[in-house]
């Protein structure tokens, strides 16, 4: 499973993940409390500088991740053009781009293992309510392992459909796909039990 962490090593990769997340929360709050277009533009140029520092490849990859925002940019721009308040519209668009770009920057410069450490730290208080952090970690590992497995089984299913029919499978293929997931879940549960079960995990 490929994570969204950038393979290009930046200085930020070695910074504490918790600090980066806290800084992200603060700057996002700040961003949403400021309406001035000039400050928004300053913020945007700062964000672009941060993207540019590790080099062109990093920047191009990072900016390509912002393409999911296009539909919103078009809608907001069209709306504010229609009510002729383009300045206000630009401020909204820039604020959204800054918030998403900053958050993506943290994702790109933080390793999956560091993120999981933060999750472990944050879920520690939940132990009092009966959530064992080791069970959560096991669940995370199971999802990461089983997603590609399910995906390849789904591809086999789609190929089997195409071999028998000239029509598209549409939603009908989701039924056998879900059944595969349910059967896999039963097998995984059995395998976990056969290896001593989760009570064993709790003791460790």
């Amino acid at each position, binding site marked *: 499973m490929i994570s969204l962490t950038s393979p290009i090593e930046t200085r930020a990769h070695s910074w504490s993940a918790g600090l980066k997340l806290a800084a992200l929360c603060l700057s996002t709050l700040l961003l949403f409390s400021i309406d001035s277009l000039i400050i928004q533009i300053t913020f945007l140029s700062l964000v672009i500088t941060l993207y540019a520092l590790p080099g062109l490849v990093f920047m191009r990859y990072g900016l390509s991740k912002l393409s*999911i925002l296009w539909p*919103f940019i078009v809608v907001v721009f069209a709306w504010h053009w229609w009510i002729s308040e383009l300045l206000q519209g630009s401020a909204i668009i820039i604020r959204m781009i800054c918030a998403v770009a900053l*958050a993506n920057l943290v994702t*790109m410069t933080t390793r*999956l293992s560091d993120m999981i450490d933060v999750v472990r730290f944050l879920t520690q208080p939940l132990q009092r309510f009966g959530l064992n952090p080791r069970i959560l970690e096991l669940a995370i590992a199971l*999802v990461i392992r089983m*997603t590609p497995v399910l995906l390849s089984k789904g591809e086999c299913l789609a190929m089997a459909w195409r071999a028998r029919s000239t029509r598209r499978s549409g939603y009908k293929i989701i039924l056998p796909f879900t059944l595969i997931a*349910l059967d896999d879940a039963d097998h995984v549960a059995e395998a976990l039990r056969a290896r001593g079960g*989760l009570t064993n995990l709790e003791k460790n």
Partner: protein
Amino acid sequence: MEKNIAYIALFAALIAALGLVPKLTLAFGVPITAQSLGIMLCGTILGAKRGGLAVLLFLLLVAIGLPLLSGGSGGLGVFVSASAGFLLAWPLAAFITGLIVEKWRSGSLAIVAAIASVVGCVLVMYIFGIIGMAIVLDKTLLQAAGFVTAFIPGDIIKAVIAGLLTSAIAKARPASVLSRPAHNNTV
């Protein structure tokens, strides 16, 4: 306990896998992403608590940087974009969908599951989604609602499909429909 963890993890993986399969196109040309169908199935099959937890686990993996959302996006950025409200409502949507299927025991499972999906995964999800969009895009609730109404018919079709799928799954694997324990299943 092992069964709970395995079902929660496998359904989180199912949501991910459904997001990575290419978009399906219904007979009359409405494109649907299968991912939100996965959220509905979490509720209708796993029930309120386990369904909500499966969706929460999936979102946790998205937040820590795995590209599991439809179209391969993920990371922290999606939680502050204009559609963040929809995303954050997913666990609650699955929970409410599951709760309705658990409590409403009479009648055909297909119809109950479809109605539960409409209430949980369309009504509740759009309320949160519209609030989120209004905040991020600085619009009134009514304006934000106007931007997304076009997607509602597609989601209602998905809810009907989720109902049909749930009833078919209950026939094929009655023991696996955790929202309705096998002994009083009315299929």
